[in-house]
């Protein structure tokens, strides 16, 4: 721990690191208790069907089984969902994906639990399934949610700016491509879990691995028909989240179990297979693009149709697609756009938030289009990007005026000046036998915050104890991204105290205040802004009390120093412990609520989005991938990687680099390895042996740098940095493959098979290797079919 107050802009060692390396930090999963019960879920196992009967008698009769519950035992609405309440806690009538819950068992130990779950027989009458985007667009397909007015279209939306798609007619060059990205899993190492119990007064307490404890309380309250004040949710540090714990996973099931446990503690801990089966996913998507430009490379018009496979329930699907649509044109000036989106129910696993929330998908498409355009125009791909990069004062592809820090141009300048770019020809020429080298670019952006219509707010609370120490009450979970570190740093800097004077309370709905989810690259921005002001109030209060004792007339004549207040003119000092002891209870606390600013005059488009559109603040990144392709095996090795990021001012270089390195690593996984394979609704990649995430051998040392454009609205000038860099690697690596002599690949991941096919296609001159398809109408299966509102 530093002995001086931390400085904003300097490395600040994470206060959570010592306990984590020592193995003493207690995650949700490390909580047990005396005489606990284990709760587990019987899953449907088939992707679509009507429940005829769930036979639980044999399981109930097994010694050691405490309770077996079905849909009939769920009080309340038995429905969860953040925007649409369409997901049963335990299915009572119909199952819509293979991971749906059909029964819940409480048992004395895990072995008994396993046996009891096997003893439950589930009789389900299978229904025809909806497994692909084309299936879901087919008006004749079976409907997942009979009461949803849009059929299997959860949300159809459109963003239009300028003259829309008609402006393509004015373009000298128009290119057209279709891109495909698969389902991904977050693969956080701590799988979904929690521990819950009912107190004597009837309240439920839950310690759970969650990104949104306050929303969890609302979800459980609604689904189980309990008043919110009967629930207490505690969120320790998470063993990873990345969006996959933004929404109820075990929460409603576990609260229900606790209601039947007679006060005993109940533990639910999904194993990896169950996490893959029942946890949230990154959306698979199909992205049709038509991009038009002037002959000099000036972007003029974009018409995009994006289709997101949201799986069986709404969850955050509509919002994920909305953000993807808002970013569909990339960080560029395109005066005329028409961006249409279909978010579709299927009998696949439930998709939701994952780092780059819908934006990672479209980044593959718009950056692939930029390289193709450069090739068509025989322009340098960096020059094309620099020419069109958004500047403050421009309108983005959603028609929103950029009024805040907009540093993509500066990021691209830094790439242009970097040796990896300037000396790329020589590096590529050094490829050995049967190897090829290529260098690819990507320019990306990512919005911050919830967007208009969903207030992005946080309530910071800070206390000075009677002993003169500080307690900081964080209402936003830390899943590893380091927001708790930023909070301690900001509090210490604001109060001019050493970090060891500050104790941090992690989110707890009884002790901390609602501050939104750990999501949307918003946590440090929103809570940090609140904290600076709460800290300023507390500082003023301490100086005010000192002024009374020191008989000083003006607060500005006093200084708050580590552990004391000083009157420099006379050298007199008062220790904080003495001052704090004179404060009454209410005086010892300061609370401030901050509300993120929004776009003041949103464009008259995107009307289908009820919440979350548009956004005011964005972070930016430009990245360079240097890859080596093995001509014989098709394997791609990323030999060097440069990530330049603009996320406002960097308040802690070490944790900022952590975020960028980790984002790039996940992005490289997206580019080269990761795909949750689902066949007819059944997962074929069941664990980390089949679903491959990068190991230390698969990644290069990643070069990171920051363009620090001060964001006027940010705490100490910062913006969120948690997601933007994850959007770059897939397009940068795909573009590098083309640069290495492959035909463009429009389908990820870039597996050795696809890479070999790309090299072969280039050799034969057959063009697009994989995934390219002509522009087509949304109803791919039935040409001319009269379905939902086609654009």
């Amino acid at each position, binding site marked *: 721990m530093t002995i001086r107050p931390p400085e904003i802009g300097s490395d600040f060692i994470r206060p959570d690191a010592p306990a984590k390396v020592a193995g003493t930090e207690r995650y949700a999963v490390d909580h047990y208790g005396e005489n606990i019960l284990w709760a587990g879920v019987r899953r449907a196992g088939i992707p679509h069907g009507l429940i005829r009967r769930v036979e639980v008698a044999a399981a109930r009769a097994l010694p050691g089984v405490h309770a077996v519950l079905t849909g009939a035992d769920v009080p309340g609405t038995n429905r969860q969902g953040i925007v649409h309440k369409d997901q049963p806690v335990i299915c009572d009538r119909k199952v819509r994906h293979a991971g749906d819950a059909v029964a819940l068992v409480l048992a004395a130990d895990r072995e008994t639990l396993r046996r009891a779950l096997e003893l439950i027989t589930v009789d389900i009458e299978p229904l025809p399934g909806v497994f692909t985007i084309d299936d879901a667009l087919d008006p004749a397909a079976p409907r997942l949610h009979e009461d949803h007015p849009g059929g299997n279209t959860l949300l159809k939306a459109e963003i239009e700016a300028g003259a829309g798609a008609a402006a393509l007619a004015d373009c000298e060059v128009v290119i057209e491509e279709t891109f495909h990205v698969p389902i991904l899993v977050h693969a956080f190492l701590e799988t979904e879990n929690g521990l819950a119990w009912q107190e004597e007064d009837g309240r439920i307490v839950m310690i759970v691995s969650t990104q949104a404890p306050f929303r969890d309380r609302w979800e459980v309250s609604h689904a189980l028909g309990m008043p919110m004040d009967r629930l207490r949710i505690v969120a320790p540090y998470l063993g990873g989240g990345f969006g996959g714990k933004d929404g109820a996973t075990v929460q409603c099931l576990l609260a229900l179990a606790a209601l039947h446990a007679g006060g005993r503690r109940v533990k639910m801990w999904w194993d*990896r297979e169950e996490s893959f089966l029942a946890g949230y996913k990154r959306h698979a998507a199909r992205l049709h693009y038509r991009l038009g430009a002037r002959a000099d490379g000036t972007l003029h018009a974009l018409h995009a149709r994006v289709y997101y496979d949201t799986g069986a329930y709404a969850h955050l699907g509509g919002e994920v697609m909305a953000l993807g649509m808002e970013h569909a044109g990339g960080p560029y000036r395109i005066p005329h756009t028409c961006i249409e989106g279909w978010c579709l129910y299927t009998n696949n696993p439930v998709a939701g938030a994952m780092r780059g929330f819908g934006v990672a998908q479209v980044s593959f498409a718009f950056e692939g289009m930029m390289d193709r355009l450069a090739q068509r125009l025989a322009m340098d791909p960096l020059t094309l990007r620099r020419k069109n990069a958004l500047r403050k004062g421009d309108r983005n592809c959603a028609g929103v005026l950029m009024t805040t820090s907009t540093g993509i141009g500066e990021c691209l300048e830094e790439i242009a000046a970097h040796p990896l770019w300037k000396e790329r020809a020589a590096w590529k020429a050094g490829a050995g036998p049967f190897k090829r080298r290529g260098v690819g670019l990507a320019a990306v952006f990512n919005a911050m915050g919830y967007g208009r219509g969903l207030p992005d707010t946080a309530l910071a609370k800070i206390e000075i104890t009677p002993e003169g120490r500080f307690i900081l009450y964080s209402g936003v979970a830390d899943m590893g991204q380091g927001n708790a570190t930023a909070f301690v740093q900001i509090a210490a800097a604001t109060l001019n105290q050493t970090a060891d004077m500050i104790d941090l309370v992690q989110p707890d709905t009884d002790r901390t205040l609602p501050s939104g989810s750990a999501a949307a690259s918003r946590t440090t921005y929103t809570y940090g802004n609140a904290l600076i002001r709460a800290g300023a109030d507390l500082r003023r209060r301490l100086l005010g009390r000192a002024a009374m004792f020191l008989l000083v007339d003006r607060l500005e004549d006093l200084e708050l120093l580590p552990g004391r207040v000083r009157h420099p003119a006379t050298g007199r000092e008062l220790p904080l412990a003495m001052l704090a002891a004179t404060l009454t209870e209410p005086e010892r606390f300061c609370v401030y609520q901050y509300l993120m600013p929004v776009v003041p005059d949103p464009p008259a488009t995107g009307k289908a989005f009820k919440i979350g559109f548009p956004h005011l603040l964005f972070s930016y990144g430009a990245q360079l991938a240097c890859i080596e392709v093995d001509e014989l095996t098709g394997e791609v090795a990323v030999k060097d990687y440069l990530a330049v990021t603009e996320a406002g001012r960097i308040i802690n270089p070490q944790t900022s680099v*952590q975020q960028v390195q980790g984002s790039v690593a996940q992005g490289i996984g997206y580019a080269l390895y990761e795909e949750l394979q689902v066949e007819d609704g059944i997962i074929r990649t069941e664990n*980390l042996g089949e679903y491959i995430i990068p190991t230390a051998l698969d990644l290069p*040392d990643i070069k990171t740098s920051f363009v620090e454009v001060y964001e006027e609205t940010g705490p100490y000038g910062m913006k969120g940095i948690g997601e933007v860099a994850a959007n770059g690697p897939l397009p940068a690596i795909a573009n590098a493959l083309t640069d290495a002599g492959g035909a463009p690949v429009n389908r990820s991941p870039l597996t050795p098979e696809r890479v070999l096919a790309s090299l072969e296609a280039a050799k034969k001159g057959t063009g697009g290797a994989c995934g390219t398809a002509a522009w087509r109408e949304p109803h791919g299966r039935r040409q001319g079919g009269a379905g939902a509102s086609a654009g």
Partner: protein
Amino acid sequence: MTIEFTLNGTRVSLETAPDRRAVDVLREELGLTGTKEGCGAGECGACTILVDGVNRLSCLMLAAQLAGREITTIEGLSRDGRLHPLQEAFVRHGAVQCGFCTPGMILGAAAFLRDHAAPTREEIRAGISGNLCRCTGYQKIVDAVADATDKKEGGSL
């Protein structure tokens, strides 16, 4: 059955089913929750422990296999309240984010460094490649291990 072994330098004797997984014995019966479980299938390395100084996956070991062994978990790596040089290096270099892979990663690295006097970065990458981390991209972990190697001064960590 009764199983006796040395755990973090102390002899222990406990009554347990011989086919219980070692990770469950450590976490649930001995309360050593620093040993994590990430996949239960030997893929992620989060449950790494040292068995007679060699890194092993406790999710694939049974209780009976602990008998007579010297077991080190993450809780046993620090001595007299002082962090092990590898643990200190992880803190200093920012090699910890969510921290869930960290105990297994550090124990894996400790076993690797015992057998490798002056590894290159590439050798370190190979040495820790059995431990998955989803947060860091491994770079700062490699930095930390390399730094701890430099501070080893020829002696064992």
